[in-house]
């Protein structure tokens, strides 16, 4: 207990950087003008938005006119998939995605299925990878969209996006990637990778919550998702969230600048944590690809124990982490991602996700390991599935 607090859940959300909050502050109380207003105060807001748009464009290798701000990563995902689907309905009704997408994509696709579209959910291998060949094989004459996430939010696996982009381009099919977990963490270039649409969310890279963006390649045929005013060049209605847009711009700028340094640090934390857990705790499984994974992601399943209990005990030690356990999600099943990589239900219930951020240190890892080993042991002692002495574990 005590005052110790270590945050290991950067994939869930990050604190907004001090510099980002400072950049945002004037836009609440002084420079609060509506960017659509033509007087000076409004024009200042407009200018701030356009500067932020430039920063986002630069970070992705896009042009500013291809960046549209949204209210979140989820909105960007909904817009991308529904927007392309409904605008290209005459051409076809088939969409290709994977079985390990975030719910913002999966549930959107399921909704589209209920409205007459057909969706192929590509299975993944035991590390959570799809292959470009799988994607190519799934293409039909009526395929209008391929949506494959850049990096998985639970197991951190990074997909072969550039190769998939090439295939999509060859077949002239729109290619969207949910890069919410990737932006700010790994280098991305929409040109080189042949990405047509890309979703991102501010709060995953030390920006504010409630702001995201969708990159849309010039010429992409899509309909609006949010109907209303003529903001975002008529494509996405609603008074612009100026402060948050400014914050997003600042955050992506800093993330891009620091990326190399940041990744080196995260990789060191990640790799040591993986190795030490593998050394110290038996009956475990690393989830996700050992190397093609986000630099800050560690995800293990611990047999015989349940994730929520593990999280609560870690929380009592001041450690914030996450799990694919059903108990933490309000749903009945454990994480669809863990099931998709082939874990049995009972193993999937016992997963732990540690995601590092820039303020974490090797001392934090020491503390984690010190806490984790006895907690796992204790929960196993309490578990009817773990009958060490009797060797009757099923």
């Amino acid at each position: 207990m005590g005052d110790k607090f270590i945050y290991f859940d950067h994939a869930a959300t990050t604190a907004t950087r001090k510099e980002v909050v400072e950049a945002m502050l004037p836009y609440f109380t002084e420079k609060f003008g509506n960017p659509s207003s033509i007087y000076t105060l409004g024009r200042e807001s407009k200018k701030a938005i356009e500067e932020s748009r430039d920063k986002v464009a630069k970070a992705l290798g896009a042009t500013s006119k291809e960046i549209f701000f949204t209210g979140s990563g989820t909105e960007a995902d909904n817009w991308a998939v529904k927007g392309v689907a409904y605008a290209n309905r005459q051409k076809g009704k088939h969409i290709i995605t994977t079985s390990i997408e975030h719910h913002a994509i999966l549930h959107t696709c399921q909704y589209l299925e209920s409205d007459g579209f057909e969706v192929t959910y590509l299975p993944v291998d035991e590390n959570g990878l799809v292959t470009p060949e799988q994607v190519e094989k799934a293409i039909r004459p009526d395929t209008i969209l391929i949506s494959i996430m850049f990096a998985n939010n639970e197991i951190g696996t990074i997909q072969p996006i550039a190769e998939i982009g090439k295939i999509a381009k060859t077949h002239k099919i729109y290619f969207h990637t949910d890069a919410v977990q990737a932006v700010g963490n790994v280098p991305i270039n929409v040109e080189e990778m042949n990405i047509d649409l890309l979703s991102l969310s501010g709060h995953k890279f030390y920006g504010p919550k409630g702001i995201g963006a969708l990159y849309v390649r010039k010429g992409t045929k899509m309909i609006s998702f949010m109907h209303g005013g003529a903001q975002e060049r008529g494509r996405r209605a609603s008074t612009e969230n100026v402060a948050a847009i400014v914050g997003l711009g600042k955050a992506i700028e800093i993330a891009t600048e620091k990326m190399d340094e940041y990744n080196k640090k995260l990789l060191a934390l990640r790799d040591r944590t993986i190795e030490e857990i593998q050394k110290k705790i038996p009956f475990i499984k690393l989830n996700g690809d050992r190397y093609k994974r986000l630099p800050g992601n560690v995800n293990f399943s611990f047999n015989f124990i349940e994730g929520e209990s593990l999280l609560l005990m870690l929380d009592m030690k001041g450690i914030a982490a996450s799990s694919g356990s059903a108990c933490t999600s309000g749903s009945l099943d454990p994480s669809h991602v863990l099931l998709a990589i082939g874990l049995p239900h009972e193993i999937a219930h016992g997963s732990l996700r540690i995601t590092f951020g820039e303020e974490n240190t090797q001392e934090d890892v020491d503390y984690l390991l010190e806490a984790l080993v006895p907690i796992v042991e204790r929960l196993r002692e309490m578990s009817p599935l773990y009958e060490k002495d009797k060797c009757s574990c099923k």
Partner: protein
Amino acid sequence: MYSEKVMDHFMNPRNVGEIENADGVGQVGNPKCGDIMRMYLKIEDGIIKDAKFKTFGCGAAVATSSMATELVVGKTLDEALKVTNAAVAEALDGLPPVKMHCSNLAEEAIKAAIEDYMRKNGLLTEENSEACSRRCDDIHRIDDED
């Protein structure tokens, strides 16, 4: 989300473990659903003298197991069979709505252990043990409207 009492029973569970040569053992739940409770009872002269548990599950599952063992010790079998899920939850100062199924499990674990005792002692003729083998959805059903 959890009351202090739940957290206390989770962090310091009473009666964790096994009873060697228990008079009744009941297991409910399913690893697929993410929770299993196994309850051991020591029964003398129709009175529960001791109770222990092993649980695989969330914080509420552990806490309700712990509370259930506390509630049944000293009770007659008839009294113990009347311990409801609501009583377990109430003794813990309440549970979050999505966790109420855990208190169902505790009630069922008590019943399963007593049934086991009765069966072993020829006190149960027909097999009406309906506690086990439900589907996850039956236990975990979440009310959409809250």
